[in-house]
């Protein structure tokens, strides 16, 4: 178990529900996330994992329930306000600034984090600190040589790495990662896992991943969703053995 284990929760959702018309993508989810923990969120396709993340980060509207960050209620706040409050995320379907270079992508994230009001009286290049932030993360995500490449022409796997980099730059207390390893080559995946481990130091991470080897290995606690609800949660070993999880998601082990 990593980080400072306090009893107080850093992120908490109470009976939240997200519905689209008659369809409920998330129902009645209540959970307390403890500071410093790395949570693995698993479940079948369409179980509502991404939607839960959307609800936490403000992209999906709640039809019921409340969300707290650091005991402050953030229900109804916009995504950027939550980012400012310390909630960062990556997306399952890559969201980058495709027409801009990789460096510019990162610099944007840095500037969004540094300035509440975006200055308009000085060229962006004159702000050394944000360039430094961007450079640092550029090497952290292993894209050193690619600073001047247009983000849109990166290969799929490299775009996934950039995706994480953008989330990191807002220096979040709570980091939500939606399938960061999808499409990342198996050789690089090990490095990526290391990266996740590293960035989870001192922060809370919620990780959605279908790669069971990774999830089981690095999670402090695992949450299983099914049909919009939390089916089970607990340590890796318990979850692995849970018959309900096996039939709904994992399948029989070879």
């Amino acid at each position: 178990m990593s980080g400072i284990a306090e009893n107080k929760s850093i992120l908490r959702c109470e009976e939240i529900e997200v519905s689209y018309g008659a369809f409920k993508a998330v129902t009645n989810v209540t959970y307390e996330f403890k500071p410093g923990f790395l949570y693995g969120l698993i479940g079948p396709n369409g179980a509502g994992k991404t939607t839960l993340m959307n609800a936490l980060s403000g992209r999906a509207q709640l039809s019921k329930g409340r969300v707290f960050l650091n005991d402050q209620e953030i229900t109804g706040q916009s995504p950027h306000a939550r980012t400012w409050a310390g909630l960062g995320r990556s997306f399952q379907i890559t969201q980058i600034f495709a027409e801009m270079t990789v460096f510019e992508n990162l610099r944007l994230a840095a500037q969004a984090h540094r300035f509440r009001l975006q200055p308009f009286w000085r060229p962006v290049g004159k702000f050394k600190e944000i360039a430094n932030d961007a450079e640092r993360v550029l090497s952290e995500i292993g894209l050193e040589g690619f600073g001047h490449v247009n983000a849109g022409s990166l290969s799929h796997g490299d775009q996934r790495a950039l995706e994480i980099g953008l989330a990191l730059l807002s220096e979040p207390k709570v980091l939500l990662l939606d399938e960061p390893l999808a499409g990342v080559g198996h050789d690089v995946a090990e490095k990526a896992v290391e990266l996740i481990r590293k960035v989870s130091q001192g922060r809370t991470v919620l990780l959605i991943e279908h790669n069971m080897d990774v999830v089981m290995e690095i999670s402090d606690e695992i949450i299983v969703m099914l049909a919009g609800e939390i089916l089970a949660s607990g340590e890796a070993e318990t979850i692995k053995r849970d018959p309900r999880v096996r039939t709904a998601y994992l399948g029989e082990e070879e």
Partner: protein
Amino acid sequence: MNAQRLMALIVAIVISVPLMFPEGHSIGMVNAILIWSIFAIGFDLVFGVAGMLSFGHAAFFGVGAYTLSLLTMRMGWDFLPALGAAGVIGGALALVFSYFAIRVSGLFFALLTLALSQLIYIMAGTKLRMLTGGVDGIAGVPRPDLFGIDFYDDGNYYFFLLALFVLALLISGLIRISPLGQALKAIKSNEVRAEQIGFNVQRLQRSVFTISGIYAGVSGGLLASLIFYVGPQMLHWSTSGDVVIMVLLGGMGTLFGPILGVAIFEIMREWLSTQTSHWYGILGLIFIISTIGMPKGIAGLIQQLWNRIMPGGKS
């Protein structure tokens, strides 16, 4: 030197024609180019940089023109404060528009701004006619009265306009490369991501919309004083259409492109119309051909030619 500088040079040449030929007949046209350029530069902040297609800028342009005219003619204000007020009112109206319009995006944004500005157009022509002079407008809009210079002389007025133009260009150039400009580009590129990294998207959009409303208000006021007249035609959506066309023709999202677009548009109007009575059709053909042949407008073409002439000259 790079393509940017080349464009700057072309712009500089076009706008300094009156300096080289002070007796020429081009001053009136260059003055109009300067004024429309201010409008287009400001418009491109919204259109080219932030990626919002507005069909409502005619409202800010026209309202600026009315503001200046009414304040100077009916309230006895001096020109400069009235011009400032034109900018303020243009910006304020843009801010009001943005509260309605920013809730939707893309084509819906374009049509909502269009509808809002048409409402103002209709108002000005009918219900507000006591104020606006109705369909026939108000004639006799004054020019500045400063330092004892006769600005009613187009040659002198040119310098006044040139100063404002340079100022407008500098401010817009700075905004583009500032963090604000970069943030706007980010929103254009990917709104979801921009919001997630912490940009207050709506506030940023509102602010750039307001800034360009100020540009539009000021340029509208200037146009009224250039032609001594203001009328509801300036509020009509086809005025918004004109500025869109100019910016597209010149190259959206570039600093100098919109100016080139304005220049071509105005020169075409002046020159072609003296050549043939079929100039509308020819202008149409030019639009069609340049859309097909110049994917990024004149600015793009210059960039492309530059790259061909100076291979490997990456900037």
